[in-house]
């Protein structure tokens, strides 16, 4: 095992709630600074706007966190996001009732989850390779479908109700946002209260011991991948509906965004430890920073740099304060 990881776990006992505090601090800092820099930032519509933008990351993240806690991860989510979106558009365009096609595209997501899970849990392929493989596959398929449809993306001839789900509002809150947050809440419950999450921690902590304790390791991992796939499917479908088009080129670095959010949240990519709330906060931090920089019309080259610095800074900060306390 990696010496750094070893160090990390000695200190783990404090880390949990503690990580959260730091993250809340960072988030608050980001928001205050942004609010000072531009009055456009701290407005209801803008907050709403950022929530919408990070919703998909949180959605996938809420399952991917457990996955990473179990010591696995999924690089294919970005392209699965794109593929399900394209499929949703493609199906509803070709006569499948929109709501049916919504379900189907979510199931397609689940399908990819199953494949990933099977490759990793049963064929024992390193997650990186397995999910990289499905990533390429999903990407190719997304473009092929669009090509079959006769273009680089599936835009035209979509039924009128295609955009309903993504765009209808309850009062001033988008419907999809509510649903997404309900799902996230549900997965928080899964994380906080179910045996599944216990097993995820166990497997991530010590796979061999988990097997010897009779944990159905392979099944658990398969299930987690299934969840990730399904939620990604949902995200892709929603995104397509919001954009009013099925575009294969979305989600280019979605997988990194998700991983960044999770890791900012204090989940170790070696598994065995992690935090759901951390992931949520991590996503918010990334989201608000990006938003603030856009509001200030900062050239996007700088934005990439800042993204990297935030990532390092936040992780570093937690480590530092941890060290001084633990």
């Amino acid at each position: 095992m990696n010496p750094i990881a070893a160090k990390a776990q000695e200190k783990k006992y404090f880390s949990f709630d503690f990580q959260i505090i730091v993250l809340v601090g960072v988030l608050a800092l980001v928001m205050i600074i942004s609010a000072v820099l531009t009055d456009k930032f701290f407005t209801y519509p803008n907050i709403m706007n950022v929530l919408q933008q990070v919703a998909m990351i949180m959605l996938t993240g809420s399952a991917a966190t457990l996955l990473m806690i179990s010591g696995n991860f999924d690089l294919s989510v970005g392209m699965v996001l794109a593929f399900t979106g394209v499929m949703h558009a493609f199906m509803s365009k070709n006569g499948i009732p929109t709501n049916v096609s919504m379900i189907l595209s979510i199931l397609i997501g689940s399908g990819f989850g199953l494949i990933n899970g099977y490759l990793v849990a049963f064929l024992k392929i390193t997650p990186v390779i397995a999910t990289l493989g499905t990533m390429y596959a999903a990407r190719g398929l997304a473009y092929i479908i669009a090509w079959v449809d006769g273009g680089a993306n599936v835009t035209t001839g979509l039924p009128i109700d295609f955009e309903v789900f993504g765009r209808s509002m309850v009062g001033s809150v988008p419907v999809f946002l509510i649903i997404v947050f309900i799902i996230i809440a549900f997965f928080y419950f899964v994380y906080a209260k179910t045996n599944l999450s216990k097993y995820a921690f166990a497997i991530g902590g010590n796979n061999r011991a988990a097997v010897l304790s009779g944990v159905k390791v392979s099944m658990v991992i398969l299930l987690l991948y299934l969840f990730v796939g399904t939620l990604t499917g949902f995200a892709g479908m929603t995104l397509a509906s919001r954009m009013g088009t099925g575009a294969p080129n979305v989600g280019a670095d979605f997988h990194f965004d998700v991983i960044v959010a999770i890791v900012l949240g204090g989940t170790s990519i070696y598994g065995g430890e992690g935090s759901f709330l951390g992931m949520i906060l991590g996503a918010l931090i990334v989201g608000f920073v990006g938003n603030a920089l856009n509001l200030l019309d900062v050239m996007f080259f700088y934005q990439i740099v800042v993204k990297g610095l935030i990532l390092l800074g936040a992780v570093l900060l937690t480590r530092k304060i941890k060290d001084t306390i633990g």
Partner: protein
Amino acid sequence: MNKTAKGSYAGIDLQKLVILGILVFVALVFFSLNNRFLSQANILFILRQSSFVIMTGCAVTLLMISGNLDLSVGSTVALTGVVHAFLCQSGMATGLSFILATGVGVLVGLVNALTVVKLKITPFIATLGTMYVGRGLAYLITDGLIIRDGLPDNFTFVGREYFGPIPIPIIVLIIVILVFLVLEKKSILGKYSIAIGGNSTAATLSGINSGSVVMTLYIIAGAMAGLSGVMMASRLGVGDPNLGIGFEFDVIIAIILGGTSLAGGEGSILGMIIGGLIIGSLGNGLKLLNVFTFFQAVMKGIVLVLAVVLDQKLKSGISIRNKKRIKN
């Protein structure tokens, strides 16, 4: 005991032989479909196209054997390439700028080393951070444009010229490979990276200064990425900040195909080279066969997984046999 030892050796090499088998197989398949695949020029092209991945891979393999990881190489390639072009443009002698730009790679490596070893940030995150920063800086240096004007003619020398019939990049590649094979087999560094990746506490208790070893490895990785970047720039004849997007994955794929485990301890440069060539010939072959571009992506994914399935099956076979042995 005697027997078991042989067995394990056979096992490890058997595994490399299998990848080699896959490579030969891939080659033969493409050859049978298009006899130009094994034409001299094409083989050179494949080698040249995969040369940068393999070059960087040599260093990153050692890094991964020590249980670490570097996602920043792609950005480093872009950054150093841009810096090289920038310096040459501003009138610096090509040779000097070549060295300085490679030095920038070393710097990136140093930053990674410090963040991972001194600040104790998990390699994945640390290098993901430098990945973003490096890419951003590359854009900033050029304002997102491509540096092309006012570059001296010899800017493209290393990248394009031939030594006899062999492109210089391939010569460099061979040298790099030889150097790293020696490093891997004969040097303290090679041995210690295995020790650290295999059992870090054992390494520390044997009085090995893991920190400095890992740092050295990161710096070397940075340097090789830098070298690749500078040579890529020279090959293209410009400084392009969009260079090397996804490069880090190509490197990692080659390494993992080569039988290096992300967990560390296991792994070999030889395997990485074969892995790199598999990816290279795969991409080249599919194009030669005029496979529809988006199917290429799908097939790349599938072949990748298949190759590893085969490899892992074999490994697990061996490790089971070994487990049986360990228990006596």
